[in-house]
């Protein structure tokens, strides 16, 4: 704890314990307060640590695929995409074009679903109880598409190493197009509820400011970096899975406060709809699985592949020793690195702002702890 003096009686140490409705999971934050002003925080994490990296050393590459969904369980499809891309890099294969397009569609749907959870829970923490119902209503539509495609709504296990397992179902394009037609009006509805609202603006502007330099120092990526003014998105900077073919914009804002991050994520949802419309307009015919052996044994080597997950840069560093089981799988979790910046963001703010800042960081404890 920074600068603590034992005899100072105006400081209060408050425990925002692992069971708390606003901490989005089992996160414990120890606050040092002076009245209502926060002097310092200390995050205690690890309540959801399941040893995923250790498990990876004892499973084959294909067997580890379902475990990866359970880290960032809100956006499971992105986790699977990152892992499959990393192993495909080691094997030096590329998924066929049809598989790439379907992967993009599902990943962007997943991004929308993840941002809907973010919006609903963030608004709920601030006190706006209505948006969470509307957001989850739209999320149902996206999850129905996942269920019809791969059989599960949350822990999808949608992709396989080298491509896809399942062919798209009858009516996939129709469902996705219906979602894209319905969704922008719903985003307008959320904005109508929140963006102009004086309570929302009052709670969110100038709260949790993180400038671009601070973001880079702390390694913070994703919507937080874009709200601070850095126009950087891994889908444009180092495109993967065919993202270079789609025209979309990177929303950025200037101030780096919570309201800007809200605007950035709302616009990201709209840009995702744009990408999905372009992708579903032309799904090429062809095989859905690349040339991958039944038993996956990459040559000795290592690779680091990262993707733009809804939360930030999600990276997989895989070391292979030539056997069927990976030697080391390291997951670079965006929520873990973003959570480090919490201390900087709430220094000097009020207690009420802690909930807003944790909500805007968009952390999922499954990813923080793995």
């Amino acid at each position, binding site marked *: 704890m920074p600068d603590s003096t034992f005899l100072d009686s105006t400081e209060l140490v408050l425990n925002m314990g692992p069971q708390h409705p606003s901490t989005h999971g089992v996160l414990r934050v120890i606050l040092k307060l002076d009245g209502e002003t926060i002097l310092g925080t200390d995050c205690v*994490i*690890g309540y959801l*640590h399941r*040893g995923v*990296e*250790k*498990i990876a*050393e*004892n499973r084959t590459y294909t067997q580890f695929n379902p475990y990866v969904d359970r880290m960032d369980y809100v956006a499971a499809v992105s986790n699977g995409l990152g892992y499959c891309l990393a192993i495909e*890099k*080691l094997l*030096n294969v590329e998924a066929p074009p049809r598989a790439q397009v379907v992967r993009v569609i599902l990943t962007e749907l997943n991004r929308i679903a993840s941002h809907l959870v973010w919006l609903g829970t963030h608004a709920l923490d601030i006190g706006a109880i209505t948006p969470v119902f509307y957001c989850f209503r739209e999320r149902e539509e996206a999850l129905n598409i996942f269920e019809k495609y791969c059989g599960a709504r949350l822990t999808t296990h949608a992709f396989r190493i080298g491509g896809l397992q399942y062919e798209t179902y009858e009516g996939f394009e129709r469902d996705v197009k219906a979602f894209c037609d319905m969704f922008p009006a719903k985003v307008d509805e959320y904005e109508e509820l929140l963006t102009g609202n004086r309570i929302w603006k009052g709670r969110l502007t100038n709260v949790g400011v993180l400038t671009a330099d601070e973001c*880079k*120092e*702390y*390694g*913070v990526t994703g919507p937080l970096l874009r709200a601070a003014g*850095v126009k*950087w998105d891994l889908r444009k*900077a*180092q495109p993967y899975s065919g993202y270079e073919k789609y025209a979309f914009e990177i929303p950025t804002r200037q101030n780096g406060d919570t309201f800007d991050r809200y605007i950035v994520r709302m616009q990201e949802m709209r840009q995702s709809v744009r990408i999905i419309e372009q992708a579903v307009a032309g799904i090429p015919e062809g095989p859905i699985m690349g040339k991958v052996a039944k038993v996956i044994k990459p*040559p*000795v*080597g*290592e*690779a*680091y592949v*990262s993707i733009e997950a809804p939360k930030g*840069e999600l*990276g997989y*560093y895989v*070391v292979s020793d*030539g056997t069927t089981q990976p*030697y*080391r799988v*390291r997951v*670079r979790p965006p929520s*873990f*690195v973003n*959570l*480090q910046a919490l201390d900087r963001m709430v220094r000097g703010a009020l207690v009420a702002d802690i909930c807003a800042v944790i909500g805007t960081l968009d952390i999922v404890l499954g990813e923080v*702890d*793995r």
Partner: protein
Amino acid sequence: MADEQKPGGSEAPLPAGGEAAAQPPKPSPPKPAPPPPKPPATMAATPWESDLARDLKERFGGQIGETSTYVGQNFIVAQPEAAVPILEYLKLEADFDYLVDITAVDWPKRPERFDLVYILYSFPRNERVRIKIRFPDGYKPATSVGVHLTANWLEREVFDMFGIEFAGHPDLRRILMPDDWQGYPLRKDYSIIQQDQRWVQENLGIESGQ
């Protein structure tokens, strides 16, 4: 059990309680010499030629072991004491301002057991580079918190999982495991179902974790 096997076998001592007690052992044809063991496969990395690699070699000379590329990703292997100076040089001179990750890999059979990997990214150049240092158990590498603030929690996690202490770290304690856990989970000699029995008995009140 047979400690020595004589090729030929006619005067081999009979195995205790073996089935060949009734008959004299038959002379077996000489076996061909076993092929020499293949050297363990290594990464098929190719040397990495670029301005950056040349600048680094010029600046750090013998402290850089090799600069290579594998599947299009560049990495350099350096001496352990050169890690933080290289990170500083890359941040100030070469615009690698974003430390993506710090992680470690455990190779128990090597004398230099741990491989510490720093992954860096440069926004202006849109490039990634990896820096690997190798050191034995017990060595304490210098902390890179002074260069990149994000190293704080990343190094705490490496300490928690591998037991690698970082000299100079402001707050080195366990981050994912409970504070009084014994043992370092991601080391290869820590089996997957091993638990800290003492912790489980004290804190959960049960006999064992399984």
